[in-house]
C-alpha cells in the first residue's frame, strides 16, 4: 500500500518476543510499544524488506531508545546483526552513542542513521556523530528553518540530513524527555494537561492587575498547544475522517532548496488508513514542488489540502517557524536536494 502510493523509503521497528519476555512491555526497545508500533518476527520483517526491495525502496530499522544498559547491549547488537544479515535492512536508526560504537565494531553491511532522539541541534554535533560512523542525521522538530539551513550547509554532501514533515509533534525535546509513554500513565505531556497546576511569583511581589489571569491563560494555551501537537495526530477524528497531525509541508520548498535529503512521515503506531492519508498528503505537495511550482503555489496547495484552516493558517500546526523567505536561501554546493520521502511502516499484528 505504502509502496504503491509513492513512499521512497520505509522505516519500522521490530520487537521480538525475547525482548518482551526479558524486559516486559514497560521497557521499550525502540521508543514505541511492542504491541501496535512494531513488527514481531524476523519472518514478518523479512517479508516487508523483500517487498520493499523489489520496488527498489530501502528499509530502515529503529534501535533508537535513548540509551541501553550494558546488560541489554548484547541482545541489541545481536538483533542488529539479524536485522541486517537475516532480514536485509538497509540502515539502522540509532541514538545511543554507546550503541553506535558497538555497531561500528560489528562492521555490519548497512548504514547508520542518527535518530532525532539524539537531539542533534548543531553542526559540531554532526561532526561528532560522523566520527562514530553516522551517515544520515534526522534532525529534531525543535530546530527553526534558519538553524536547519546552517546545519545542512555545514554538514556538506557526505552527511545526509532528514527532517520531519508530518505528524506527531512534541512540546519537549524527545531526546531530553526522560519520561514514559506507557499506557498505565500516558505520555507525560498529555498527562500534564490533566494535572492540577499553580503558578507562583518567586520574587514574592504581589501579582499586578491582570498578571495572574495572564499567567493562567498562558498555562491553558500551553495545554491546548500540547493537544494540537500530540492529540490532533491520533485522536481528533470526526465523522469517519482521519486528520493528519502537525506538519512542515509549507517548508518543503525550503528543504528542497537547502538540500535536505529525506522527509520523514512519522506515526509507527497509527492506523494503516492514517499512514496512507499522510503519505498521499505529502506526495501531493512534493509533486507540486517537483513539477516546478513556485514557493507560494506549493504552500497554498499544502494549506488547501490540510482541510484545517482554523489551525493551519495561523500556524498552530506548524513544526517550523516561518520568518525566512525560502527563495532567499541558496542550495549548498554538492547537495542534490529532496530525494526521498520516508514513511513509517506499521506492525501488522493484532492490536495495531
Amino acid at each position, binding site marked *: 500500500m505504502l509502496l504503491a502510493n509513492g513512499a521512497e523509503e520505509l522505516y519500522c521497528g521490530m520487537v521480538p518476543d525475547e525482548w518482551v519476555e526479558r524486559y516486559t512491555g*514497560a*521497557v521499550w526497545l525502540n521508543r514505541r510499544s511492542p504491541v501496535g508500533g512494531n513488527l514481531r518476527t524476523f519472518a514478518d520483517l523479512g517479508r516487508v524488506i523483500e517487498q520493499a526491495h523489489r520496488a527498489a525502496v530501502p528499509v530502515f530499522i529503529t534501535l533508537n531508545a535513548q540509551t541501553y544498559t550494558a546488560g541489554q547491549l548484547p541482545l541489541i547488537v545481536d538483533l542488529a546483526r539479524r536485522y541486517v544479515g537475516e532480514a536485509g535492512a538497509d540502515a539502522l536508526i540509532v541514538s545511543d*552513542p554507546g550503541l553506535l560504537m558497538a555497531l561500528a565494531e560489528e562492521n555490519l553491511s548497512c548504514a547508520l542513521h542518527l535518530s532525532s532522539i539524539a537531539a*542533534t541541534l548543531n553542526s559540531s554535533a554532526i561532526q*561528532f556523530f560522523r566520527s562514530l560512523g553516522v551517515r544520515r542525521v534526522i534532525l529534531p522538530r525543535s530546530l527553526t528553518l534558519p538553524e536547519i539551513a546552517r546545519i545542512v550547509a555545514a554538514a556538506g554532501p557526505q552527511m545526509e540530513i532528514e527532517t520531519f514533515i508530518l505528524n506527531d509533534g512534541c*512540546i519537549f525535546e524527545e531526546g531530553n524527555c*526522560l519520561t514514559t509513554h506507557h499506557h498505565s500513565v500516558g505520555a507525560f505531556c498529555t498527562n500534564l494537561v490533566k494535572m*492540577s497546576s499553580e503558578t507562583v511569583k518567586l520574587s514574592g511581589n504581589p501579582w499586578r492587575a491582570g498578571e495572574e489571569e495572564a499567567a493562567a491563560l498562558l498555562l491553558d494555551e500551553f495545554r491546548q498547544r500540547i493537544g494540537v501537537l500530540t492529540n490532533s495526530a491520533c485522536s481528533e477524528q470526526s465523522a469517519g475522517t482521519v486528520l493528519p497531525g502537525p506538519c512542515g509541508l509549507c517548508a518543503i520548498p525550503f528543504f528542497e532548496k537547502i538540500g535536505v535529503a529525506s522527509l520523514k512521515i512519522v506515526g509507527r503506531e497509527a492506523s494503516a488508513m492514517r499512514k496512507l492519508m499522510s503519505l498521499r498528503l505529502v506526495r501531493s505537495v512534493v509533486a507540486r514542488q517537483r513539477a516546478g511550482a513556485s514557493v507560494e503555489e506549493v504552500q497554498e496547495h499544502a494549506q488547501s489540502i490540510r482541510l484545517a484552516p482554523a489551525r493551519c493558517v495561523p*500556524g498552530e500546526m506548524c513544526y517550523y517557524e516561518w520568518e525566512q523567505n525560502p527563495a532567499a536561501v541558496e542550495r549548498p554546493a554538492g547537495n542534490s536536494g529532496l530525494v526521498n520521502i520516508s514513511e513509517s511502516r506499521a506492525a501488522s499484528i493484532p492490536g495495531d
Partner: protein
Amino acid sequence: MEWAVHVRNPALADRWDDLLADPLRFCEPHLKEFHGPAAGFFRQAAIQSPPRRVCVGNEFCESLLPSLDDFSDLCEKLWLRQLEISFLTPPATDEGLDTLRGLFAWLARQGRPVEVVFNDWGVLQLVHTEFPDLRLVRGRLLNKTMRDPRVVPLYNAANAPAGIRASMQPAGLDSPFLRSLIGKYGVATVEMDLLPNSADMDFRELPFAVACYVPCGFVTSGRHCMISSLHIEEGSQRFRPGAPCRQECREYSTTHTFSASALPTDGTRFFQRGNTFFYYPDEKALHGFLQGAAERGVARLIYEPGLPM
C-alpha cells in the same frame, strides 16, 4: 568526596558566606519543604569543610547563556575567593555554540583549571577540538536513564520484574562502549541526577569520577518554553523554539500535581521553571544516598540552592 554549589546567578556569589551559613534561605519560598533536608546536609558539610568548587551557568536553556562581561565578572569574583569553577553548558544550536565559543576562548586564556560540563555532544566536540586545555565533564542531560516519578518508584520496587529493575540502572555508567568514548575524549567526571536506585549503586570501580546533583533532578526539557511566551501576544507565535526570551523563568514557577491515578505515585509533584520540569526524590531516598555517598565512591555532590534556572 567534595561538595560543590551551583551559583546560578551573580547575587549568590555576592552572598557566598550567607549561602553557606543558611542555604535554605536562597531556595524558592514554596519549595523549602522539599529542599530542607538536603540544605541541612549541605550546611553541616560546609561547616566541617567549606566547598571549594562552584558550578556556574545553566545546563537547560541557551537563552540563559551569559554575556562575556557578566561571565568574566562572575568568574573573577569567584576566583578571588579561591574557588574552582565548573561551567555548566546547555544543549545548543549553532548560534548558542557561537556564544559558547567566545566564553570558552576567554576561559582558556585565563590559564586556570576550569571544567566545562557538556550536555550536548556538539559542545564536547567543540571543546575537544578547539579548547583542549579545558577539562571536560559529561553533564546530567546525557544520562538518559528514565526518571519519570510517576512510574519509576514502581519499576524499581523489590517486587518489580527483574528485567524492568535492571533497566533502571543509571545508563551510560555501565556501558563499556560509552566508557571507551568518554576515555577517548578525556572526560574525567560524569554527572547524574539522584535517581531512584542511586543509593544501591557502587561507584568505586568506575574508570571516572561520579558527581551527583541534590536535591532536585530534571524530568524533561525542551525548546518550547511556556513562561517565556508571557510577553508574547496570544496565538501561534507563543511557545516557539528560539522565540525572544525575557528570562521570565527567573520570576515565575508552576507546580503540577499528578492526580486522578490509582497508582501509589498519585500526588507526585512536578516543578516547572522555564523550559524544564524538575522532581524531588523522596526524603528517605535522599537520606540513604547522602549518608552512604562517600563510602560508595561518589566523588562530588553538587548542592542546588534552588531549582537550577
